[in-house]
């Protein structure tokens, strides 16, 4: 019987890499070698086959996409591998779609059924998070050694249900603490081979993100009020008669683009701050992640990607995804002490169900 809380079976040695006295740090950069036109080929063929097979191929499509991104990510001369089996993903995907449909129909059965479905969903999220991480990490490898995730199902409830709920109940005041808890749970339980990772991010770091976000949000709202005031003044001054045609035009040219712009900006800003904090505080076997992500650059990247995706009716997506990966990876590096001595653990087998649950409900989990 496999011990679910410790699938590797062996002892987790986080101190195996201490070589006192002979400290030699080198900086190893991540590099991304993918390009938009290669990924476009993969992406469009994925779409075609997925439609032709009524969705069945989407599992194979996902594996090909991930293989492309992992295979083109290089660290210290070697590439990453994505090893998941499409069949496992297909099973999970079918279950997730069934669950999604059941959830979306539940509200039509009765009020109670809708609430029960929502409660079930919330109760399942922590389990889905753990399954998803186990599946994704144990199917990721570098130099022939697999990653892993040792977080337990029960351990996932506080960071993914209790603390976020408290965050909502306190109108966001406790939310950065919930982020901190979730970050702890995530990065203190990843493994590369048998070596456990650790996060040194602090609560304070997450509160800085929270406060910055509030300031950014207030700025956006202030801009909106300014716009309302300016247009009101203008209509009054030129005696402009509002009409349906004007409302159509205003919505298409001003309201939607600026809503989208504000949303993309805030989201990118939040993501950049998060990456900056998280990827500066991960340590594994004496090696430390460092990054030089710059929020404004990242915001520009996401906003311009979004704009180009819109004007090309979606066809820019592959280039956008490649640009984002290239920016992020070229700004992350490893302060490496020893990358040759990670030992592989037992093979981990996690079902794909959790992962696809996670994906279908858009938990947006990273690697």
């Amino acid at each position, binding site marked *: 019987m496999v011990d679910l809380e410790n699938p590797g079976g062996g002892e987790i040695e986080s101190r195996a890499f201490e070589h006192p006295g002979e400290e030699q740090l080198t900086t190893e950069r991540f590099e991304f070698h993918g*390009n938009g036109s290669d990924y476009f080929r993969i992406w469009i063929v994925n779409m075609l086959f997925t439609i032709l097979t009524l969705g069945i191929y989407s599992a194979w499509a996902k594996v090909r996409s991930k293989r492309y991104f992992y295979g083109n990510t290089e660290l210290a001369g070697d590439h990453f591998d994505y090893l998941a089996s499409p069949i496992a993903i297909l099973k999970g995907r079918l279950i997730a779609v069934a669950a999604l*449909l059941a959830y979306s129909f539940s509200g*039509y*059965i009765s009020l109670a059924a809708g609430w029960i479905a929502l409660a079930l969903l919330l109760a399942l999220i922590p389990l889905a998070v753990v399954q998803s991480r186990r599946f994704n990490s144990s199917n990721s490898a570098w130099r*022939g050694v697999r990653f892993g995730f040792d977080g337990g199902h029960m351990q996932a409830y506080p960071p993914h249900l209790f603390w976020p709920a408290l965050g909502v109940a306190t109108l966001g005041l406790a939310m950065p603490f919930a982020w901190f808890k979730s970050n702890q749970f995530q990065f203190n339980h990843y493994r590369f081979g048998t070596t456990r990772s650790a996060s040194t991010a602090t609560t304070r770091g997450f509160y800085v993100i929270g406060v910055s976000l509030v300031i950014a949000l207030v700025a956006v709202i202030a801009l909106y009020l300014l716009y309302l005031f300016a247009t009101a003044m203008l*209509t009054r001054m030129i005696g402009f008669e509002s009409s349906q045609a004007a*409302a159509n035009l205003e919505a298409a040219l001003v309201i939607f683009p600026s809503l989208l712009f504000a949303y993309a900006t805030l989201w990118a800003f939040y993501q950049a701050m998060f990456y900056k904090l998280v990827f500066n505080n991960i340590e594994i076997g004496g090696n430390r992640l460092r990054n030089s992500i710059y929020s404004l650059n990242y915001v520009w990247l996401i906003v311009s990607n979004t704009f180009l*995706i819109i004007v090309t009716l979606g066809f820019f997506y592959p280039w956008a995804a490649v640009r984002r990966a290239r920016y992020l990876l070229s700004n992350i590096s490893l302060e490496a002490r020893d990358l040759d001595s990670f030992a592989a653990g037992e093979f981990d087998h996690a079902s794909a169900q959790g992962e696809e649950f996670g994906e279908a409900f858009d938990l947006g989990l990273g690697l």
Partner: protein
Amino acid sequence: MNELRGVWFEGGLSRGSPARLRWSAAAIAVITDEGQMVRVDRDKIQALSPLPGTPTRIAFGGRESFVTDDGHGVERLREALALAPGLASRVERHMPAVIAAAALVVAMLAAIALWGVPTLAGRLALTVPEEVSAQVSQALMSQLDFFLEPSGIPPPRQRELERYFQSHGEIETIVFREAGRFGANAVTLGATMIAFSDELVELAESDEELLAVYFHELGHARLRHVEQNVFRAAAWLVLITMLTGDIGAVGEMLVGLPLSAELAANSRAFEREADAYAVDRLIEAGLSPMLLADILRKLEAHHQRRGSENSAGGGDADPSAGTDSRENPVSPSLPDYLATHPPTSERIAYIRSRMND
């Protein structure tokens, strides 16, 4: 030459060694540059079809692996192993095939959106049994009841209207509610239930006008518009999940905007169908279709009045508040392409055109 250059990983430790993978009819082996040779079992080789510009990992059933940049070499190895050629990688490699794939994707997505989803939803909606529809109506009504009050219309008057409506076309349930801030309205909650607001009953100058509204709603019910909407939403949900599994939050918003425009266009089409149904039934009952036009006009005026009352606080800055010519009675601030109902003027023009038939 039946040889691939690459890196050999034993899988025990995170380090690899430069090596060659060689194959012949008789045997397959990996030879490291240091001279170590590992024979591999032909049946256990897993060489996935290569991706453009990406190293390929070849596995041997255990934790060992061999990684190579030589995509063409991997295809030769796959041939030697009698593995079926990867269809995806063959399409990916040829630019004309890629362009054809892109054209096909656009054509198929358009066909799915314009024809596939509506047809499927229409067919499925007809298969929903009445009892299930009734259950759905109950669930929707109990959600609406959070925002509504019990009707203030005297029960005898309610029963009188109900009998009058039912005598012109039967439906299982007709209910009345006080809608408060939602004002005059009527709504179909599935094939078996229609709800009227007190405000609408008060607004109508005759029972015939209410009958015109009833016919419109009966059109929604008979044509199974609510059920169709449920299936359409579900179809889009599955489609978007399958096609855009990992596009992230901004991506989802990008997909969401055209989708809401599509759903609104669909909703306007339903309104037109229900108007046509109502006109047919009014003519059948020997009544004038203009009854529908009259009540639509009153509804529009009613909602405009309420709109300007509601925005009275900020109305100061809007000199045109009283004479606003925005036409949509349900949601006056929405642009046309997101409105759930066609403009009232358009609907009245249609009814007029039917008068001249």
